[in-house]
């Protein structure tokens, strides 16, 4: 997977590059947008991470350059402005996703994964260890035990299982499971994770739901550490 990062701040570009390379991507960095369209055309990238505030050429213009050459290339934009108008403008200009700064690396890679996976068929039965979710019949079982879940718990578990073995941030969970931005002021995610743990992990030998402090949560049967 090859990703083009267009970001004028060298330190930001550097940690994005390091972080994504650690996850197995190969990453090219451009510090301004002048040659972005050309580079996107000549090299076969899988995704682009684009900062909207660039010297010389605005991110919107760069986005148009890329779109005029590669209409389907997934583009994720980064911006230091977090206003709703900015967000709408970015998505209207043809971006596929949007992240305000500062962001979590875990979230950036999760969003990239989602963009890259787009269009791929979604599995109807999800499995992590002995936990199984049938997304057509909306049934969950662990081993031989059927587990009854409330709608939000179900949605949360499905999101965790679709991202199994990879950390997801609270912000991502809120965006996917709740239709509102809780602004992290309520511990609504923690409460649901707790009730999910009570149903999915309690009484079983191996815990599947793990808290990663400073990052978020991960659902896995093979915790790395």
């Amino acid at each position: 997977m090859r990703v083009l990062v267009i970001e004028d701040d060298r330190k930001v570009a550097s940690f994005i590059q390091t972080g994504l390379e650690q996850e197995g991507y190969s990453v090219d960095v451009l510090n301004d947008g002048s040659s972005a369209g050309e580079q996107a055309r000549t090299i076969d990238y899988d995704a682009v991470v684009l900062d909207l505030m660039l010297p010389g050429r605005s991110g919107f213009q760069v986005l148009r350059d890329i779109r005029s050459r590669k209409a389907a290339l997934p583009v994720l934009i980064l911006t230091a402005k977090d206003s709703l108008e900015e967000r709408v403008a970015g998505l209207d200009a043809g971006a596929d996703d949007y992240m305000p700064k500062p962001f979590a690396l875990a979230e950036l890679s999760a969003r990239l994964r989602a963009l890259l996976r787009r269009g791929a068929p979604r599995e109807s039965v999800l499995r992590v260890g002995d936990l199984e979710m049938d997304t057509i019949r909306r049934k969950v079982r662990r081993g031989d035990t059927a587990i009854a879940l409330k709608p939000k718990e179900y949605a949360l578990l499905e999101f965790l299982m679709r991202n199994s073995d990879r950390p997801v941030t609270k912000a991502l969970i809120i965006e996917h499971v709740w239709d509102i931005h809780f602004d992290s002021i309520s511990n609504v995610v923690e409460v649901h994770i707790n009730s999910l743990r009570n149903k999915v992990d309690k009484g079983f030998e191996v815990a599947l739901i793990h808290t990663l402090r400073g990052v978020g949560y991960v659902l896995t049967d093979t915790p790395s550490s």
Partner: protein
Amino acid sequence: MTLTLRARLAAISTVVFGLLLAALSVVSYSVLARRLDGDVTERLTQLTDGLHGYLRFDSGVPSVEFDAADSDQAAFVQEATRYYQIYDVSTGQLLVESSGFAPLGLRLTTAEVQAFRARPNPFDIVTEYGRLRISNSVRPVSGGQAYLLQVGVSLASMDVALKQYRGLLLWYTPAALLAAMFAAWWLSGFALAPLTRMADEARRIDVKTLERRLPVRGVDDELERVALAFNDTLARLEQAVGQMRQFSTALAHELRTPLTILRGEIELALRKAGAGDAAQRAAASQIEEIDRLTRLIDHILTLARAESGQIQLTFAPVDVGDLAASLVEQLEPVAQARSIDLLCERAGVVVVEGDAGWLRRLLLNLLDNALKFTGQDGRVVVRVSRDGDTARIDVQDTGIGLSTEDAQHVFERFFRADPARSAITEGAGLGLSLVQWIAESHRGAVAVQSRLSEGSTFTVTLPIRPV
């Protein structure tokens, strides 16, 4: 009591006009009265002097002799002899009296006749036919004798004329004053109308519409100067707000970039750090603090943008009851985890014209606040009702409550009721400021009623149709 400028102007001009009118009435009346009086006295002198010329004394007996063929003479004598009487000065004896004089009973004593001789001034008497003015004149006749002639002339026509004039003034003056009052009210209204229009126009200008200006008509008058001065002030204000907006946008960018680098690099370090060691704990803790700082910046910038008019609300019909019910449903697990009863009570369908996203934020902040400060086994109730043209949302909790003193400041930025509260939550004290901004942006209001350790009720009122 203060009167409006219009009322004061109208009152002052009415009083001035009234005083002028009263002065004019008094002066014109007294001039007229003196003039008429003078005319009567002059006529009386003419009649008296004329009558003396026609009197003949024949051995002490007076008679009037004139040429009856001369109609002028006849008319004069007829007028002069209507009221007259003649006394012998030395004896005080009445020599002759006219038929008009007889019924008046004006008989003089000898002493009175003597007195008139000394001071022959005319005098007025009142009769049942009106006032009479009577002249006194003493003339000698041949033989050393003298006689007193009294001639009367009626003052009735003068009195009637003056009475009519008084009547006219009595009606006319108040009527004119009333008319003047209306005219003054209308005129001052007319003169002040541009000022009222300017005030209306100025009231429509707020932080979002600072580019608007008062209309300028291009004539150099007092009102124009007010408008120009106001427009100058607006221009300076617009510039200042513009700089503030640029500043907050620049600040956002300048703060976010280093935070992004900080967070990214610490996250990389966290990946490398071994599980459970001190470095990992430190890195995780730093990330939490960075996230807290980021939220704080977000809140401050949202408030700054809101208050400098950079947030445009999109108005559409919003079912407040549905909104409240859906939020209550979503927050139910949070409440349950703390054994708090979270209820939504809806009285009828309440639909307001508003921005759904921001109204949701308003409700969420209030609910979040209520849940934060309510302990185990407490109760949080959201009530949505309608009162005429006003939608009302009450968020009532059985939490720790606020003192009267604190309740007054609860909507101020960064306000924390007391240090003990900070221990409960990490909020920065900006949520309620935003609630207030959202309510006011919908031309509504938010208020709080609270008792320490009994709970608080936050009440939001929103007009169904904000203009």
